[in-house]
């Protein structure tokens, strides 16, 4: 028994060392670390991101700036401390040139300093956008290919304001991102907020009490933020309570390519806001969506599109520098140009290195083959900047 245990430890040590040294013997490729959630209930999001990264790799022919590149995927298990540990491993052991991914704000915040300060490595968030990093904590080594949390609900609020919606009932999970989302919609929607519920997170399964309150309050519309499985739950219960058709539902991050196969017809007609939609009419996007669908039989989500963009952003800098990434100042300067074909259309970087970009209103519909998807129906905001960039000391 004893020797067995030691045997395992030895193999483990060998495996770790082998994983660390073998690739280094090849002709020093560009290495990109990708931290996302690949296990547990949220693994579907990580899978969508990985598929998009692999597609980006395929579209680039496995090379950027004339050099081969490889992606090292790490699973954060949806836990900030694990995410930090994995980021540390990528920087210190795998010695990657870039770290990207990050679905969750808390995982990103836990990992940020390890990567950007201690490791002096460039981090590109492909999803999470907590306000701190857009403001005080902004960092020369941090870039975003997504958005700042407040922006998407701001776009939704702006649209509802312009459509003359008089009153809203707001609902979100009781956690940091949920509060950001409600704060965001309140920045732009000037009508009456008739009621507001922050529900237990993540363990609330039942929204009956809140739906009964909404029925009694009779608002013009309901605004929700319930990502992932909670979005499925909310929509189902909203329909079962007989509110669909009576009080319209508006959402951010609650109806997407990952949840739609579960929400099905219940989602039809629901409006939401997003910076990227699968039908945006630029060539890069058309190719991405078509190839993704052909390969996997489903639509990609914004998580995937933002991850694809992150790889393309890195590739643009590597191209411009002909694969020589040794001078970090030059790399950062190239990245800041955002000189690549983003799937959302071209954008510029703000001083805090978050995109200045458009936000669109999308509607859940059925495509000609009967598959659920979303389509663009309006532009809610043009060249929007996040509300925190002025707090960022970088100019």
């Amino acid at each position, binding site marked *: 028994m004893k020797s067995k245990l030691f045997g395992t430890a030895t193999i483990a040590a060998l495996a*770790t060392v082998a994983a660390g040294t073998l690739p280094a013997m090849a002709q020093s490729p560009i290495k990109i670390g990708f931290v996302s959630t690949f296990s547990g209930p949220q693994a579907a999001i990580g899978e969508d991101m990985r598929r998009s990264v692999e597609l980006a790799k395929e579209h680039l022919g496995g090379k950027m700036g004339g050099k081969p590149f490889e992606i090292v995927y790490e699973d954060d298990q949806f836990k900030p401390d694990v995410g930090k540990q994995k980021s540390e491993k990528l920087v210190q052991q795998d010695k990657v040139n870039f770290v990207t991914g990050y679905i969750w704000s808390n995982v990103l*915040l836990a990992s940020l300093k390890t990567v950007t300060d201690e490791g002096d490595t460039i981090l590109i968030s492909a999803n999470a956008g907590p306000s701190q990093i857009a403001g005080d904590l902004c960092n020369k080594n941090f870039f975003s290919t997504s958005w700042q949390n407040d922006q998407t609900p701001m776009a939704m609020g702006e649209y509802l304001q312009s459509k003359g919606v008089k009153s809203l009932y707001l609902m979100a999970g009781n956690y940091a991102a949920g509060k950001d989302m409600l704060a965001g919609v309140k920045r732009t929607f000037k009508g009456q907020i008739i009621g507001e519920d922050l529900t237990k997170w993540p363990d609330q399964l039942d929204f009956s009490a809140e739906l009964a309150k909404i029925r009694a309050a009779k608002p013009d519309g309901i605004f929700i933020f319930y990502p992932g499985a909670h979005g499925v739950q909310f929509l189902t219960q909203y329909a079962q309570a007989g509110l669909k058709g009576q009080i319209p539902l508006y959402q951010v991050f609650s109806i997407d390519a990952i949840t739609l196969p579960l929400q099905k017809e219940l989602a039809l007609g629901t409006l939401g806001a997003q910076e990227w939609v699968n039908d945006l009419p630029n060539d890069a996007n058309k190719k991405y969506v078509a190839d993704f669908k052909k390969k996997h039989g489903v639509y990609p989500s914004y998580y995937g599109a933002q991850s694809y963009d992150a790889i393309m952003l890195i590739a643009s800098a590597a191209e411009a520098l002909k694969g020589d990434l040794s001078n970090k100042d030059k790399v950062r300067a190239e990245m800041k140009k955002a000189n690549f074909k983003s799937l959302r259309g071209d954008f510029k970087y703000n001083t805090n290195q978050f995109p200045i970009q458009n936000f669109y209103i999308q509607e859940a519909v059925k495509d000609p083959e009967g598959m659920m998807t979303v389509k663009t129906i309006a532009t809610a905001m043009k060249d929007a900047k996040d509300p925190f960039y002025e707090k960022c000391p970088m100019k």
Partner: protein
Amino acid sequence: MIAALRTPRGLITALVLLVLAVLPLLTQAFDQRYLLSIGTRIVIWSIAAVSLNMILGYGGLVSFGHAVFFGIGGYAVGILSAHGVSSGWIQWPVALIAATLWAALIGALSLRTRGLYFIMITLAFAQLVYYVGGGLEAYGADDGLNISRSRFPGLIDLRDKATFYWLCFAALCGTLWFCSRFANSRFGHVIRGAKSNDLRMTALGFPVFRYRLVAFTLSGTFGGLAGILLANEGAYISPAMMSWVKSGDLIVIVVLGGMGTLFGPLFGTIAFFVLEESLPPLLNLFAKGWGEYWQIVFGPMLILIALYARGGIDSLFGQRS
């Protein structure tokens, strides 16, 4: 001391401690900085596991909320740091006192219950603090808060990885020393006696409740110490550090290593971290892509350990004398 080295257990223990003592030199020699990071976390978690073992292993009191002390120690440091109090001379004592007081309070309320009731009431109090932490918007709420490391001007610089590691290792040695004194004292014997039969100890005239309360409180103090170090290690605090999953992990570690043994929690922590780091790459060696499913192997492993390795890893090193 020398005689102890002749037993396999003594030899292995000495070897493990020796490797841990010189770890920064080894990782520097082999240019494996990441291994030092893992080592630091192992040492910090060991402190928490040893402190849990004081009540769980020796006392038979299954606390399902021990990670709360990670949180209390960590948040005390983090909150002070957020208000510009960066001196460790203030931060650390405040954090230790906070953890001690909270342990005394929940101990006084929880120790009236037994068995599953005790498991659940300690969980309840931990959840309470967890949600309070998630509601502290001034300190990042669920997103957590980036903090700077404690300062001990002129003495040591915690930003240096090796220095910080040695500090953690010294704290672990102190905790182990205290635990061994505790276990072999008259006080410890009462706690251990009450584990198997608290009615008899009460009948013998020992105030079992008060003894247990003191043990629970001390265990909380050392848990708080681990929290202080954990917050400094990551330069980050968040409610996730005290989620019930972490409390569960700590229990698993103590049982895995060997309950009621001095070095068991240390072995348990090492095994836990090594498994977590090595199972995914190992599985990938056998079948590409299966590394992500490592828990399908880890789960049954826990079952087998619970069923067949009753004394934990410590028992693999031969019978205790």
